[in-house]
């Protein structure tokens, strides 16, 4: 398979680019909701529009009412989301939670997927327990209780946790904190008694929660996949999420780069356009080169994942690490090359810097994934 978009994918990219630039742009969404101090941090109307575009259920199988598309397609939408800094539940709901639900019972699918596909529901995922992503260690516990489970513990960095109609929670049902086995995933509904959220606004204006589970009673049918065998589902969800986050990061990097290159062609100092200075040209060219490579790595990871390749996990970490470094470079160069106005709230370039910071942290940052590449490669 050639490593570029086929005709259908190129068409989808055109559609997504046009739609998100029009409806999901920075003024209409990110600034709009931020300036109103919106407690969701995103717009429900846009989510509904994304459903009408067919985006929300793109990874859901056709048999379950979705479009049965793959991660290349999801990545196309995410790249545009990244480019426009569009706050939306797409990555957590339509990629992460949707991937988890693929492993769920018919009953769970029936309960949650229609709402996702229609753009009426929003889902979140609760994985991290400390300030750094470390999914190998899970201490939140679910103990058997009657026909179901009782959940105790705490999660953090739950993106849009307070807005979510359902949260996918990774909990330990047996073994000790660091064990690979003994994990179970649960679909916890929003009104579950004993679940409480401490909402925090993050640097990029997105909303996250520290979520506590204090004796939350769950039915047995809240289990996604196998009891004690949730690691496989968690891993599948993480790979999908990382590849998705990489695609969004490519969009952030490209957005910041394009804005900066445009600025170099407008701003005059010393009687010249600053884009004429070779010191800046070379840095812009280096950035271009890194962004191209990061994007290729991301599309490769998407294709491997869609093809069910055993290398998808490795390539997902390569892509996440490469994109994290590249988007960081893009936003840093972006702010620097804008000079003083790059530091102002009025200019969008600073918003890219903020988004990159949050996105890079999500599901593991550049060093987490470089370390993972080493481990998966055997050193």
């Amino acid at each position, binding site marked *: 398979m*050639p*490593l*570029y978009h086929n005709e259908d994918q190129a068409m989808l990219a055109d559609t997504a680019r046009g739609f998100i630039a029009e409806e999901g742009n920075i003024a209409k969404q990110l600034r709009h909701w931020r300036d109103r101090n919106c407690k969701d941090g995103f717009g429900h109307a846009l989510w509904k529009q994304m459903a009408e575009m067919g985006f929300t259920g793109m990874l859901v199988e056709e048999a379950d009412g979705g479009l049965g598309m793959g991660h290349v397609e999801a990545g196309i939408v995410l790249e545009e989301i990244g480019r426009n800094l569009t706050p939306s539940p797409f990555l957590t709901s339509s990629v992460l939670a949707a991937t988890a639900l693929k492993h769920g019972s018919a009953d769970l699918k029936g309960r949650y997927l229609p709402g996702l596909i229609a753009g009426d529901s929003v889902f979140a995922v609760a994985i991290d327990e400390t300030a750094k992503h470390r999914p190998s260690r899970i201490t939140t516990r679910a103990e058997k209780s009657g026909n179901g489970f009782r959940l105790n513990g705490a999660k953090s960095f739950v993106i849009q946790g307070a807005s979510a109609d359902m949260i996918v929670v990774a909990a330990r049902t047996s073994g000790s904190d660091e064990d690979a086995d003994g994990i179970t995933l649960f679909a916890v509904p929003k009104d579950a008694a004993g679940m409480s959220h401490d909402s925090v606004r993050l640097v990029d204006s997105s909303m996250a929660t520290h979520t506590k589970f204090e004796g939350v009673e769950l039915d047995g049918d809240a289990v996604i996949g196998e009891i004690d065998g949730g690691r496989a589902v968690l891993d599948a969800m993480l790979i999908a999420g990382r590849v998705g986050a990489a695609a969004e990061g490519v969009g952030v990097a490209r957005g910041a780069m394009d804005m900066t*290159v445009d600025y*170099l*062609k407008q701003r005059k100092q010393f009687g*010249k*356009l600053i*884009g*004429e200075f*070779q010191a800046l*040209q*070379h840095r*812009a*060219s*280096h950035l*271009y*080169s*890194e962004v*191209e*490579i*990061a994007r*290729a*790595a991301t*599309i*490769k990871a998407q294709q491997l994942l869609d093809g069910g390749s055993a290398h998808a996990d*490795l*390539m997902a*970490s*390569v*892509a996440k*690490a*490469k994109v994290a*470094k590249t988007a960081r470079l893009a936003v840093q160069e972006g702010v620097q090359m804008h000079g003083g106005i790059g530091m102002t709230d009025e200019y969008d370039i600073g918003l890219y810097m903020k988004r990159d910071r949050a996105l890079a942290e999500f599901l593991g940052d*550049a*060093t987490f*994934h*470089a*370390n993972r*590449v*080493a481990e998966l*490669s*055997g*050193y």
Partner: protein
Amino acid sequence: MADLEQFRTETRSWLEANCPPEMREPVRGEDDIYWGGRRATFKNDAQKAWLEACIAKGYTVPMWPKEYGGAGLSAPQAKVLREEMGRINARPPLSSFGIWMLGPALLHFGTDGQKQRFLNEIARGEIRWCQGYSEPGSGSDLVSLQTFGEDKGDHWVVNGQKIWTSYADHADWIFCLVRTDKADKYQGITFMLFDMASEGVTTKPILLISGSSPFCETFFDNVAVPKSYGDDVPAYVGTINRGWDVAKYLLGHEREMISGADGGERAAAIGAMMKRHAAKLGDDLDPVLRAELAQFDVDALAYAAMGEKFLDEIKVGKAHPAQPNMMKYAGTELNKRRHELMMAVGGSRSLEWESEATEGGKPSRNWLRTKANSIEGGTSEVMLNVIAKRILDLPGA
């Protein structure tokens, strides 16, 4: 798609039957690859057998048309062949500037007579070509070149000097940029082809910091170059005085080659191999070095994906025409980093210049050789200039 799978099966069994086991060993030195030419010798029988099998099948230049010695493969088929050769670690049967540089230029600009003659010679490894571009006063600023061809009607008399001419002392023929109009800088250069055995051509090897002398100073002292080698075989490519267009087109292919876009050893991750190497030397990787290797592997694997994407795109005209410059910049900088890390893991062992354990100082000599990657074929700074101008469209670039 089904056809492609069929092709994969056929290719796999053809390779199984025709690629000798010795030709599936990693390439250790330059003589492990056959470069062809009138004076070339085979290192062993396996090398000869492998070349002959590939020539018969058209696999020395798989995408060239059959009439010019290729196999006429489509881009997806060529990718399958590359993947299948990579899978068994098959060495390239033949490598040469003819394949990578002159061939593509002739396919694009050549007359049918030139293609019939020169491409077939290249495909069979009969004639080894060298590249006469750089001059002492004209490196990055190549278009300022001074080597002059005086028009004598049916021939030119060429005088001047080239430098850094790789393998000029082993080459049979040269493709050479010669000024034929002093009044016009860009439209006064002719892309000439002539025999290195011509009277008045001398070469003088230059010793590199790696201790070998793969390139030369090349002198032209009243060299008579006929304008034609026969019916439809002019001695120049394209049009007289418009050789700069050919030269630039060829540079794109040269940069693609140097970039290592086609993967293989250069695109691969090295961390696991370095851990084994350290263990052999009785050591473990220290944590900071391990971290640097991990960061490198991320970049190397990402670049391998870029190489695959670039080749897929360029074969169907989807790549930006200036993209080989980006590939060359990124690929060569990466390769230099690779060898810095390999030297670091090897420690004092890798400093040995002549020992048996290092097969005559391979680590340090290879490390030094990579420093030329970001100079030859256009420097990294020039690549960045080209990206700024042609891709980013920055002012005054």
